[in-house]
């Protein structure tokens, strides 16, 4: 059986792993390569590296660390941040990344998704979606809306897209996987946004990864059992040692979630 994936996410700024609360106030957690190695050995199924400053600063990720990670780890990893062209994508994949994740540049030019999928294959094109529940929208009934440039608080802005529309659009264009970052939950460790993930799941025929809100083991059980996501991404609970990978995976197995034990 295909296993559900546990995906530690390492937000990267200037070659260091950082973590903020609701995308703000970033604190340094540690060096990238030893952290990546530690998670691979602990039984992570995949790793994601987000250069959170890249899109906002209008530059491509500093690439040297991609190759250093590929040298040491033997599980798949994805790189995100400022990948705007086929050439950017090629460089990162050539250095050993298995997938590339596109967020703001896909919003600026949606055809980029189709071009990347054609050249590199749908399987390595991940679309990151930063979604915020705006209570005031939709005549006060509230609505999930897509945001961009979330790596930089000063430049974070709402886009014209409703989340559920954008999810469908990126699939039409050739997205191979979608990571849904639920911004209201990010970094506050109160649980994944099950309600939103269920709505997106219903419209998502490619692998869907939940992101934002993991605080305890039961949150992972809930998101797999209730929202049927393919993977769950988390950062601070792993970086701060709040959740141990082996205990998490054993609990999921006990709860009948298909999981790879290490």
């Amino acid at each position, binding site marked *: 059986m295909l296993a559900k994936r546990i995906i530690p996410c390492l937000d990267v700024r200037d070659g260091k792993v950082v973590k903020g609360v609701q995308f703000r106030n970033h604190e340094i957690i540690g060096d990238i390569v030893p952290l990546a190695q530690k998670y*691979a050995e602990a039984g992570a199924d995949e790793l994601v590296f987000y250069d959170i400053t890249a899109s906002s600063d209008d530059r491509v990720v500093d690439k040297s660390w991609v190759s250093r990670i590929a040298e040491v780890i033997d599980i798949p990893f994805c790189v995100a941040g400022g990948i705007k062209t086929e050439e950017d994508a090629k460089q990162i994949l*050539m250095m*050993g990344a298995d997938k590339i994740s596109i967020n703001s540049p896909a919003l600026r030019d949606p055809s980029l998704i189709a071009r990347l999928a054609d050249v*590199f294959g749908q399987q390595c094109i991940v679309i990151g979606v930063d979604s915020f529940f705006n209570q005031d929208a939709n005549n006060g009934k509230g609505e999930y809306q897509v945001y961009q440039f979330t790596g930089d608080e000063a430049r974070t802005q709402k886009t014209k897209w409703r989340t559920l529309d954008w999810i469908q659009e990126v699939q039409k264009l050739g997205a191979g996987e979608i990571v849904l970052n639920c911004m209201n939950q990010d970094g506050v460790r109160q649980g994944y946004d099950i309600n939103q993930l269920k709505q997106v799941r219903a419209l998502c025929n490619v692998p869907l990864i939940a992101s934002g809100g993991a605080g305890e083991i039961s949150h992972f059980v809930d998101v797999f059992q209730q929202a049927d996501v393919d993977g769950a991404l988390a950062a601070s609970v792993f970086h701060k040692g709040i959740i141990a990978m082996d205990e998490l995976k054993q609990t999921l197995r006990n709860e009948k979630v298909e999981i*790879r034990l290490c």
Partner: protein
Amino acid sequence: MSEKKQANYVIVDTGCANLASVKFAVERLGFAITISDDVDVIKNANKVILPGVGSARHAMENIVAKGLVETLQQLTQPVLGFCLGMQLMARTSVEGADKNEVVQCLGLIPTDITPLQANDLRLPHMGWNTLTQVAEHAIFNGIKADDYFYFVHSFAAPISQYTIARCQYGAEFSAAIAKDNFIGCQFHPERSSALGSKIIKNFLEM
């Protein structure tokens, strides 16, 4: 001249993107390996790895453009294909082909690559899945059914007499195929943690 010639291992430069990760995986095991698209270097290798990601059409176009088709077809030493590299060993693939056409592949193993029959399951088939059956083969020394490997694909080789390992996703498909000196794995050994490394080691020590 009695000195044992040092084994030389080569990764075929198919122009695809995962060359570096395959090279690193071999190097982590303590073996040296060269990435090359040179006909003589490939011919003279003791073992050849054929990697690949992306679409069959793009990869075959690269191989044709580099003039490597005959070289690869005439190899007699052990050759191991990973993922798309395995699929390129087949006769044909429908991936990236125009409607009602097929992409001609290397024809090393007489099977044809078709869309994965996932039924209602989501595609691509992406993540860690278990092998449902593993044949006796040197490449699978120490590997058994229910072991997890990392898969990423939407196309597959159907079950045939060349199947040496099976996986289930909607329906059964070949997780690995082999004929004579040619062996191919649909999953990514270079991204399948310790058991994936075991397969690479088995191959290099075959």
